[in-house]
């Protein structure tokens, strides 16, 4: 990223923070409450939580959260910006095409951070699990967030705003129920396992889980390789969609 591009990204992020400043405390509180709710609510959903299950669930929660932010929140905020004219206004400013998306996803990462911290801390205390956080968590979080946001942004820029809401709701349900984020891949039917071996979702969950526990599932290089490839492809498609002039 050049100096001018980095500067415009920082200014767009500042714009986002300023315009939502009155909601920030509420948003961070809600994200934190959601994390607390997941840890305590999980006990009702699964009565006999073993440490292995608790570890899987706890370390899957941030991945799910990042994907939902990218695929639903970024997508819906972008669709809303298209309706209000904010998207066209920012598109007429001298900023790189993906800078608004990067600012949006960074903003939501910042909003989520306190909630993640509280959730993981509570999980350690409540389920007596052991976390082993490594620095590789940082590139993992960035890759997962960017990939999900690129897909959400691409959908929002290409599809009519009303369709974006429906599409992203469908994707949320598919992620929650049919993606091996909070449970092992082996629990799915074989054909769905094959589908997920070609999709990045399993590898995204593996990356974040690995960054928190040191256990990267099948292969750390494979997980990084697959997610990086999807991230590059997603950003290229999002940029192309943003550059499209009707």
């Amino acid at each position, binding site marked *: 990223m050049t100096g*001018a591009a980095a*500067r*415009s990204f920082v*200014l*767009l992020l*500042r*714009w986002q923070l*300023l*315009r*939502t*400043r*009155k909601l920030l405390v509420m948003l961070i509180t809600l994200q934190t409450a959601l994390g607390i709710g997941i840890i305590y609510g999980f006990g009702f959903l699964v009565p006999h939580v073993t440490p292995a299950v608790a570890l899987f669930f706890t370390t899957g929660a941030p991945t799910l959260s990042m994907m939902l932010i990218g695929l639903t929140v970024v997508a819906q905020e972008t669709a809303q*910006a298209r309706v*209000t*004219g*904010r998207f*066209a*206004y*920012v*598109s*007429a*400013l*001298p*900023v790189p095409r993906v800078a608004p998306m990067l600012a949006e996803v960074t903003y939501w990462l910042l909003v989520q951070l306190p909630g993640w911290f509280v959730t993981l801390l509570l999980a350690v205390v409540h389920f007596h699990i052991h976390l082993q956080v490594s620095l590789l968590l940082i590139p993992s979080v960035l890759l997962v967030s960017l990939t999900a946001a690129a897909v959400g942004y691409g959908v929002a820029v290409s599809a009519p705003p009303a369709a974006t809401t429906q599409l992203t709701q469908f994707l949320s349900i598919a992620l929650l129920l049919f993606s091996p984020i909070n449970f092992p891949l082996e629990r799915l039917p074989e054909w769905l396992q094959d589908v997920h071996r070609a999709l990045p979702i399993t590898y995204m969950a593996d990356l974040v889980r690995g960054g928190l526990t040191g256990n990267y599932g099948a292969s750390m290089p494979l997980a990084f390789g697959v997610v990086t490839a999807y991230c590059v492809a997603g950003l290229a498609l999002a940029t192309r969609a943003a*550059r499209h*002039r*009707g």
Partner: protein
Amino acid sequence: MTVLDVAGLTKTYGDSVRANDDISLTVEAGEVFGLLGPNGAGKTTLVSQILGLLRPDSGRILIDGVDVVRRPDVARERCSYQPQAAAPVDGLSPREAIELVGRIRGCDRAEVRRRATALLDALDLTGVADRVAPMSGGMARLTGFCMAAVVPGRVVVLDEPTNDVDPLRRRAMWTQVRRLADEGAAVLLVTHNVLEAERCVDRLAIVAAGRVVAQGPPAALKAQLGAPLRLECTVEPGVPAPRPPASVTVTGTVGRRLLAHVQQQDLATAVEWAQDAQAQGAVTEFAVTPASLEDVYATWVASEGQPA
């Protein structure tokens, strides 16, 4: 020096809606160029292509000689823009919104602060400059203007800048528009407020049904009307007026208003006829004024390309 050069621009939506049809115009440095036309004439489509938001089907757009159809990034760099809809100022104070855009357009913090303060002061907004509250339509419009003017591009595009703005601040805004041009920008002013535009524009184009139907300085366009004076009568319904003399060319009626063009040498005859009509109760009042840009606009738009 030509800054904006549009030639043969055509844009069609779908298979049939031709929003712009072979539009050609130029805007010089230091010039305020008015783009006048009714709703749906294709003005905003033209602006969107200049800004690089839409791709034309055919034609050329050059800014300082650079083909911005191929290089929309250059269009974004060299154009500053006030949209027809309110600028996205929700959650921000006017000063924050202006400074953010100024800095995104590449100016340093101290200089942007100085320029924003000067603009806010010129538009009498200092008292509300730092207030973070939902803005009224007029306040959002004024802030949007400042966002376009704080670090002006080589081309400054203002789309209906004075809508919802009170008369005093409107006047101040026109002064600032003139200042932008005087400092070297090419200002493209999109409006259907013809009376206000007349005071500010150096040249203009009238757009109707996607085509430029007339173009030139206001004085030259008024001269094309062929009559320097306008006779306006308020007629009394149900009372027949005496037949106007041949030298009074009736151009139309709007409600109870009858509009006509009159040559300078026929003024006495026209006034005499109007006084007769008034004496008979057919006309309640009348006035003779110099023909305005509004007359030019109404004539060209009504005929869609053929002056009356």
